[in-house]
């Protein structure tokens, strides 16, 4: 148990270090002068240049620059955006809430829908119809789903607002758009897991004890089917983080995605790098949670 935790922590730190280093190397690799890359399209005065040189230690040896950057990153200080004249953590902190709301709502919707689809569509024809629908969801670009939902529910029927982030109603369509492809993938994984679990001897035993098929499915098979789905949590966090960039653009929502797009468009490197490091943090947190979830689902792992 202690070994597993140590391994987990070491891997997590290594991933974070790798992400921070990759981000730093990216900054060095960007064409042109490093001061120019950090400024981006912001005001370019000798004062700001001097400020950047002292902040990033550009007048010191490369090793010192790198170590100092790591030290500051470890403390949560990711530099300043010279375009927005604010520290990067301010920029991100100010926009992270709408994105978190969207990601959480989409994840809950996607996972619930996948569970419902996988458990209720066991019968032949329903199952085939559901599988086809899932294939469509997985193969459709998310922005297309968003655009279709917008044109039907916002433009045609006027049920939901067209854009912005005011109130719960504005969250519905974006969360559905982001959640549907997730449901499509997870439902396939869960259905596969259920099929495999129902072929196991324990399912036969449970049926022989006189359990109804539904009880076998929910009380016995589902737990086994959840294991491969938990493995996909890391994938899920990636889809959510990447997806919000596109979905926020489709629905004109404020958030991290918009910040990132603007930063990329204006060459605001400190913000881009911070988002990359943040994505790595999310990955580490989620994969740690996934490991804990294994323990929760599978009692055999707790014993050993």
């Amino acid at each position: 148990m202690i070994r597993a935790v140590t391994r987990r922590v070491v891997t997590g730190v290594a991933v974070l270090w790798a992400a921070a280093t990759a981000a730093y190397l990216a900054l060095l690799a960007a064409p042109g002068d490093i001061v120019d890359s950090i400024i981006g399209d912001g005001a370019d005065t000798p004062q700001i240049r001097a400020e950047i040189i002292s902040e990033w230690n550009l007048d010191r040896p490369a090793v010192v620059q790198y170590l100092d950057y790591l030290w500051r990153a470890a403390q949560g200080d990711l530099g300043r955006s010279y375009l927005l004249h604010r520290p990067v953590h301010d920029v991100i902190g100010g926009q992270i809430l709408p994105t978190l709301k969207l990601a959480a709502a989409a994840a809950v919707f996607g996972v619930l829908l996948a569970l419902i689809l996988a458990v209720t569509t066991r019968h032949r024809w329903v199952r085939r119809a559901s599988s086809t629908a899932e294939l469509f969801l997985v193969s459709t670009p998310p922005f297309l789903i968003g655009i279709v939902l917008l044109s039907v529910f916002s433009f045609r029927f006027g049920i939901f607002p067209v854009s912005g982030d005011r109130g719960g109603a504005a969250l519905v369509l974006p969360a559905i758009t982001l959640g549907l492809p997730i449901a499509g993938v997870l439902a396939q994984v869960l259905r596969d897991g259920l099929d495999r679990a129902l072929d196991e001897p324990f399912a036969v035993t449970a049926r022989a004890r006189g359990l109804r098929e539904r009880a076998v499915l929910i009380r016995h098979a589902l737990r086994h089917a959840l294991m491969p789905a938990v493995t996909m949590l890391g994938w899920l966090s990636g889809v959510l983080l990447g997806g919000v960039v596109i979905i926020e653009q489709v629905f004109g929502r404020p958030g991290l995605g918009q910040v990132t797009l603007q930063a990329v468009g204006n060459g605001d490197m400190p913000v881009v790098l911070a988002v990359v490091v943040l994505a790595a943090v999310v990955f580490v947190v989620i994969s740690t949670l996934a490991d804990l979830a294994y323990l929760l689902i599978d009692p055999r792992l707790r014993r050993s």
Partner: protein
Amino acid sequence: MTLALPRPVARRLILRPPRPGIAAAAVVLALTLTAVVWPSLFAGDPLAADPLHVLEGPSAQHWFGTDQLGRDVFDRVVHGARHSLSIGVAATVIAVGAGILLGLCAGLTHKYADEVISRGFDALAAFPLVLLALLFIAIAGTGTTSLIVAIGVATLPHYARVVRAQTLIVRQAPYVTHAVAFGASRGRLVLRHVLPNVLGPIPVLAMIGLGEAILVAAGLSFLGLGPQPPSPEWGAMLSESRGYLHIAWWASVLPGAAVTATVISLTVIGRHLQSRFEGRHQ
């Protein structure tokens, strides 16, 4: 144990007409490929604007309607096949090439090197593809090349993991041990004995992966990070016509539907081949 073939295999050996879904996917794929190779067979000029017929709905003359500049949406979708597919194919070629190379390295080197490379694949596979592409574009500038390289790098773990797993099996095979005993050089061992035997599952994986690459490429060019207007790339068309969604759904929805149709048919045929292929190997 009876000697009879397991039922699924026996059934497969009898030639049967393909299921309707697979047949439909094959037709869509054939049409898409024709559009890539010879777009003018079906469609006229994708850039010809007609200011008198702006945002007209689908009709006998304009099957998919016209867009905000009066360009024929059907013509643009057909010509867009070449743009969208070539990005997907180029990215997949990069991913497969680099994936095979790194997978072989991981499978053939020392335990610790393997561990480091494999954890690298894990991190890369989990990292949001869109963000990785954005990082590339922030460094190298907007453009189709950054887009292709970014998608290629982000999807290479798919292939690298499979090649690594296959390599670990193949390196233990008797024919490899024999080759070692006969004094084959390292290069010959890898190129002649290991490589050809680890590549089996790659073509089908690449087919399914191509669908994903096309999907992501469309998303990024929707954000304005790929081919620039007026080039008729599917994602770019969607983002160009998005502002007119409330009066002309066809100009944005139909190019998107082209992406869906292509990706679905690639996935359906890929999975079909995969299931047949696995059956033969087990």
